[in-house]
């Protein structure tokens, strides 16, 4: 008797999970399927299987705007930004974790507060800064702030305090290794998994950034992927196949990153929130 009612609720749970999974997956499936159909096929019926118009869509897409240009531009910003967040994030976290100096707590409080600042609300000041530095139409305003990524510092400080013992630093110090050498050769390799996790998050955040590039980059050939995507509707008008294909191309890098690193990503989210 008891078993029976349990089965029913198990079924409804299963249905809920399947429904939510479909809700998350189907929009992406529609994008990939429709990117291989002609615009006519797309407005005539709901397509369930891939079509054969992917090359035509590709030609239309590229003839109106060079999507790969946006792709490359996004990579040119995202990769150096991500490397800076990882390297400097680890270095700054190491400074806070293993050294004692005056005002350390005050300085760390500044790091924590900067984590909560709603950055989008200082966009006018950011724009004025870029004007003053003659950095409009430059990628530097999006790359250099990678050095001061508070979340990465916060996360890696916890990891260093847990996994690097003082003796691991003292031993090479006695043997005459320089302080930077200790960081580069001992600390950084030891916390590499944590650094990689944060780098994945920072890569995604930088890849998806929209308002900053929209404001600072005025020359069309400098547009990043999200800026291009937001302007596609006006450019492609009724070329639906080309639009779906462009969305698919913008989504693929994130999908690939997620397919390989989903465990790291979710574990990273998890450990980050436990602290």
């Amino acid at each position: 008797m008891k078993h029976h009612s349990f089965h029913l609720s198990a079924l409804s749970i299963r249905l809920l999970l399947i429904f939510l999974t479909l809700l998350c997956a189907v929009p992406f499936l529609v994008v990939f399927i429709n990117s291989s159909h002609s615009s006519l096929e797309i407005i005539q019926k709901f397509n369930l299987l891939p079509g054969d118009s992917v090359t035509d869509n590709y030609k239309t897409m590229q003839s109106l705007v060079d999507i790969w240009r946006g792709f490359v531009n996004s990579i040119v910003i995202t990769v150096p930004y991500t490397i800076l967040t990882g390297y400097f994030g680890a270095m700054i976290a190491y400074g806070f974790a293993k050294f004692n100096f005056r005002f350390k707590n005050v300085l760390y409080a500044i790091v924590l507060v900067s984590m909560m600042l709603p950055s989008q609300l200082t966009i006018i000041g950011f724009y004025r800064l870029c004007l003053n530095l003659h950095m409009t139409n430059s990628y530097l305003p999006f790359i250099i702030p990678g050095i001061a990524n508070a979340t990465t510092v916060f996360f890696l400080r916890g990891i260093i305090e847990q996994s690097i013992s003082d003796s691991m630093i003292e031993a090479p110090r006695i043997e005459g290794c320089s302080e930077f050498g200790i960081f580069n050769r001992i600390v950084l390799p030891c916390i590499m998994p944590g650094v990689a996790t944060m780098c994945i998050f920072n890569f995604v955040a930088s890849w998806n950034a929209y308002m900053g590039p929209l404001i600072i980059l005025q020359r069309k050939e400098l547009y990043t992927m999200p800026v291009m995507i937001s302007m596609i509707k006006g450019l492609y008008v009724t070329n639906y196949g080309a639009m779906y294909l462009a969305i698919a191309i913008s989504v693929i890098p994130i999908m690939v990153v997620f397919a390989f690193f989903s465990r790291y990503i979710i574990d990273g989210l998890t450990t980050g929130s436990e602290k």
Partner: protein
Amino acid sequence: MIQPDARQLPRKKPRRSTLAKDRYGLLFIAPFFVVFLIFGLYPIISTFQLSLQKWDGMMPAFSIGLKNYTRILGDQVFYLSLWNTIRIWLGNAIPQFGIALLLVAVFTFSKIHGKNFYRAMFYLPNLITATSVGLLFNLLLDGDNSPINQLLTALNISGAPISFFQSKVLTSGLVSFVQWWMWFGYTTVIILAGTTTVDKSMYEAAMVDGASKPQTFWRITLPLIKPTLVYLAITSFIGGMQLFDVPLTLSNNLGDPGKAVLTVSMYLYNQGFKNFNYGYSATISCVLFLLIAGMSGFAYKAMRSKDGMYKL
């Protein structure tokens, strides 16, 4: 006589090396503060300064006192955008926490095969570029021949095809839905992480005392993960108040129809970069900043003091 000297000698050495090495600590953290001063603090000060000025981006800015602030007090569009932003946030935050808590309860109390797969699937939409998501849902919904309308027509739903983006209520609801779609998985993953810190023996003790699963969840799990929930609520509020990408790409940059999904961030963007009223745009930022800081602080305090009362 020799004793104290002998004790001091070995002590002196590490102390001096500690001082020398601690200077490196400052060196290691210096890059953060150099970059933060330029790209973090300067924009904040500059935005506040501009909120007291008039600036069109070409001519030098000049001070106009509190004029921008008196203007915003009577600005109906600002109030509308603020209400839109809050409504859209409530419309996605409430179902987001509801579904997330339901999923957490399911994952905690039933043995689900493929838990990690579901977690990953639900979290995936959160990683996708928000502009792509907005455009994608626009393509899926907009027009009589959109895939969703074809589906609704095929299912003989009355009223189909629906002109989603002609209706204020539907457009606003859809922005909330897309935000929910992007964030319910994230919320679930974070709350689940919070529940792993709950001691398993507490559940067993509750079961032994005859508590049902829902009772255990409401009375034991929820109070214990309250800090996680407060953290999520505050960060969700801070993010929700800055909503920009999704309504802009799902609708257009005016938040049509009839400014139904014009958010504060969109309004400040339009005031600055479309109308070249950078000073007024900065004022909108400052007012929203104060509202966010005030509300977050208030929420944090309220939760804290309530906790205290429970303890009494």
